[in-house]
């Protein structure tokens, strides 16, 4: 969304920021999260998972505002966001940040 002027409290109020978590092996490559993310945080990955689907990859992590749309529109329960403060680092090779 393009703002034609800056909000007056832009210095004090920052939009929330979220961290995207993806369970690569659950993804069936439907593309809903990529298409409907309002901040274009995701793109299709050039790699594919074990079942041959291209999961999303986070190309613009700084843009994520933790809106939660990808969380709720994923039919496979494969992607979700968490607000920055709550995010724990993940170690699994099947879980990409």
């Amino acid at each position, binding site marked *: 969304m393009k703002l034609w002027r800056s909000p007056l409290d832009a210095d004090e109020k920052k939009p929330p920021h979220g961290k995207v*978590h993806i*369970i690569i*092996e*659950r993804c*069936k*490559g*439907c*593309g*809903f999260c990529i*298409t*409907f993310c309002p901040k274009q945080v995701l793109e299709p990955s050039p790699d594919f998972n*074990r079942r041959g*689907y291209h999961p999303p990859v986070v190309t613009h992590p700084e843009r994520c505002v933790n809106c939660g*749309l990808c*969380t*709720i*529109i*994923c*039919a*496979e*329960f*494969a992607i*979700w966001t968490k607000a920055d403060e709550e995010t724990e680092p*993940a*170690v*699994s090779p*099947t*879980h990409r940040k």
Partner: protein
Amino acid sequence: MSFEQLATHPLDDLLRVDRIPHIWCPTCGLGIVLNSFLTAVKESGIPREDIVVVSGIGCTGRAAGYVNLDSFHTTHGRALPFATGLKLGNPKLKVVVISGDGDLVAIGGNHLIHSARRNMDLTVICVNNFNYAMTGGQFGPTTPRQARLTTAPYGSYEHPFNLPFLVDSCGATYVARWTVLHTRQLTGSIKEALIHPGFSFIEVISPCPTVYGRRNQLGSGLDIVKYYRERSVVRNGIDTRECEIDYQGQIVVGRFVQKRKPTYLETMNDYLRQSIGEEFVPYQGPMDESGD
């Protein structure tokens, strides 16, 4: 075959993760309906042991097998009377029926109109993908005219139901329709319906790319959902007569009906108490499990 994963989706505690991945096709909307439903369950705060899911036969019917709640996958068309028995057998339960357009409206049509008439305290999520998907894509009572399906190879020439109008006219007290794109409104509606006393009916328009979409060359589920984005209009409170859906036409969504009328149990108990007087003994609930 299990995939090792150390990450847990926020809804994994409400899913039978040993049954994931589910059988639904890529870009099918059913997973989104399940996601919205489980999100609503979580956000509603209703104790998990009180929620029971009943489904029928069909692609949507498989939903019962994926929720980590008491769930019953019953015979074709009979989810509603089964749910009625559950609710009357233990009125404390929150009984949710998740089933498809064929199951609820064709073979189950009689039960739909009577459950609505009785204002039975049930929450019904009717996923409408305009065909009988599980059996390969036959037309059904919600298929718009012209759509081509295996038992209507030249296009369907039957008039479809307008579901919100149907259940509204039968006495449903909460009626809404959303598409799978309207995930937040859908979740909100489900939350409202869960606490709404009486018959709540939520129609969810969902893409079926593998049969309905393919047989009518509508593209993938993503293309179909983009059509929802273009052609759906939110009209809360509109007269349900205006909710017809033509083939690839406008889809009116919204919360159409929300009113309070005594539920079946309220009416039954009040009436019997009045008619019989002091000797009336209301239903005492399920049997004692202590083994006496």
